[in-house]
């Protein structure tokens, strides 16, 4: 069942000499909910448009069911798209919008009728047949766009930031709705978004992209717990990223001391990036943990406090439900599974330092007692 449906091989895309996609290779299995995640300009929409057939890559191959489809125009692909801002045809009503693809394909009217009402119930829009699409709310337009694409029974549905125009509440509802629809129809969804939370909560597979390259492919848990580099660690959730040295398997050194960890397979004494998630840190009494620092800033976030702690001039973000007043000294304890070790990359040193987290006066000469235990 889980066979490869789409394969991208070394896709390169250039616009006016500007490289937008740089050697993108990706395998997409049938029936997956796959998300291309990244900031604007990272190449995710370009990748989607290449799969949809709206762009031809400068070089590289797109395989569909094992066949190269680079030269197959969009209208001959078994792929349909839900566009950004929906792109519903304003001169047609809900029914005619949804029936559009079937009419083009020459399907008989009774069959169209049957399938449109079937589709309307899938997207919970029964009774909306004769509404003008311009009179629908954003969420309703969204559903029409999905129905219009799915009615053609594509093998793949492409979704280009489909929830971008909706407000937060509606977005959450539609996330669940989309996941439900995907499971109901059982086809591959390729979803493009810049919203990491959306990506993590909906997808089977997340593809993190930046500057035209794929940074990491994995399940949401993999991406979050085992980020491949500093970029991914920073883009997905909050991270403290420190310079460290891998002493040996399961042993990493940072802040001048060794910590146990679960990572292995690094070269001896390889310089690495160490990621510590703000919510993984346990706060203990000063001196009771492995490190001791000073709280420099506290912000209430509802569920927890964002606490900025200064360790030897390097500031960490720690998320904790306990309140620690500004200026108080605290200790922290790190368990081996709280520490994630990554190879150095071009992104090393660019992320994960919370020194500029807020307007704070820098305490000079705090290169103090971090060594004592």
């Amino acid at each position, binding site marked *: 069942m889980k066979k490869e449906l789409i394969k991208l091989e070394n896709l390169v895309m250039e*616009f006016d000499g500007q490289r937008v996609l740089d050697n993108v290779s990706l395998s997409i299995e049938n029936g997956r909910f796959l998300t291309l995640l990244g900031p604007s300009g990272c190449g995710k929409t370009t990748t989607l448009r290449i799969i949809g*057939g*709206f*762009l*031809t890559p400068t070089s590289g191959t797109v395989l569909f069911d094992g066949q190269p489809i680079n030269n197959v*125009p*969009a209208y001959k692909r078994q792929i349909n798209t839900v566009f950004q801002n929906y792109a519903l045809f304003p001169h047609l009503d809900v029914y005619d919008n949804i029936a559009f693809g079937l009419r083009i394909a020459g399907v008989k009217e009774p069959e169209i009728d049957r399938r449109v009402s079937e589709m309307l119930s899938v997207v919970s829009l029964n009774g909306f047949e004769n509404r003008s699409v311009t009179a629908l709310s954003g969420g309703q337009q969204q559903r029409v766009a999905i129905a219009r694409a799915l009615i053609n029974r594509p093998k793949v549905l492409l979704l280009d930031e489909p929830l971008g125009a909706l407000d937060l509440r509606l977005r959450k509802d539609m996330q669940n709705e989309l996941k439900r629809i995907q499971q109901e129809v059982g086809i591959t969804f390729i979803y493009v978004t810049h919203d990491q939370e959306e990506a993590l909560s909906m997808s089977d597979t997340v593809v993190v992209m930046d500057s035209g390259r794929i940074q990491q492919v994995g399940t949401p848990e993999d991406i979050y717990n085992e980020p491949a580099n500093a970029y991914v660690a920073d883009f997905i959730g909050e991270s403290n990223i420190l310079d460290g040295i891998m002493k040996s398997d399961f042993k990493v050194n940072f802040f001048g001391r060794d910590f146990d960890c679960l990572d292995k397979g690094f070269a001896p004494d390889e310089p690495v990036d160490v990621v510590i998630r703000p919510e993984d840190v346990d706060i203990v009494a000063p001196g009771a943990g492995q490190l001791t620092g000073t709280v420099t800033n506290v912000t209430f976030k509802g569920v927890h406090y964002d606490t900025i702690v200064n360790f030897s001039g390097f500031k960490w973000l720690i998320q904790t439900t306990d309140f620690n007043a500004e200026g108080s000294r605290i200790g922290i304890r790190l368990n081996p599974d709280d520490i994630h070790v990554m190879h150095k990359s071009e992104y090393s040193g660019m992320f994960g330092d919370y020194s500029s987290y807020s307007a704070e006066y820098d305490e000079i000469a705090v290169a103090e007692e971090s060594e004592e235990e």
Partner: protein
Amino acid sequence: MKRNSGKSWLSVPYIVWMLLFSIIPLCIVIYYAFTDSLTGEFTFSNITGILDYATIFLRSIWLSVAATIICLIIGYPVAYTIARCKPRTQRMLQMLVMLPMCMSFLLRTLAWVALLEDTGIINNIITSLGLQPLPLIRNSGAVILGMVYNYLPYMILPLYTVISKINPRLIEAAEDLGCSKAKTFTKVILPLSVPGIISGITMVFVPAVSTFYISQKLGSTGTVMVGDIIESQFKGAYNPNLGAAMSLILMILIFICIGITNRVAGDEEEVMMP
């Protein structure tokens, strides 16, 4: 972003058409302007011959500039008033401005002759009141009036289009920030209507400076304009080479005038359609 379907070839028939019937004719105008009417040899005499008509050129410009300014001064309040009406009334008034443009401008100009003549309608009224008849026709004033009458809608419509599109919130914002009504007008509304003013000026000035009927009917021998002279080179005293030279100079003059307008108003280049 590059799209897969390159449909720009669809404009090829049009481009060919315009080359054949717009660009090449202009080249032929240039060719005629620099050739002798009898021998067909290259000559500057057509261009230098225009110097004899310098006063006519200058007169055409001043008459049409005067008409354009009057159109702007009386057209702006009209456009402004229309733009402030209810949408339904706006559509109705806009239609009433456009309607005369669709009617034969020759006959409407002729009606002005009947109104302004020495024994015309207006003078009949004046004399019936026991006053002396006024010299209303066959002078520069009558020609300017004819131009204003004929081309005023071309001023009102682009102005109206621009003014009606000004976001009323901007006006509220200006008032909120302490502008008086007059200040709001000079600081917000007027600067925002500049594109409309420019296209209005262009759309009035160009046909006014080149007209050849209005001055024939409402003017005298003292108000002959470039258009009349060009017409006579083709339909009367046949000298197409001189006519071509004049057309060329007229064209250049207009481009200079439009250039000046655009420069003065700050390089807004937008052709507004009624």
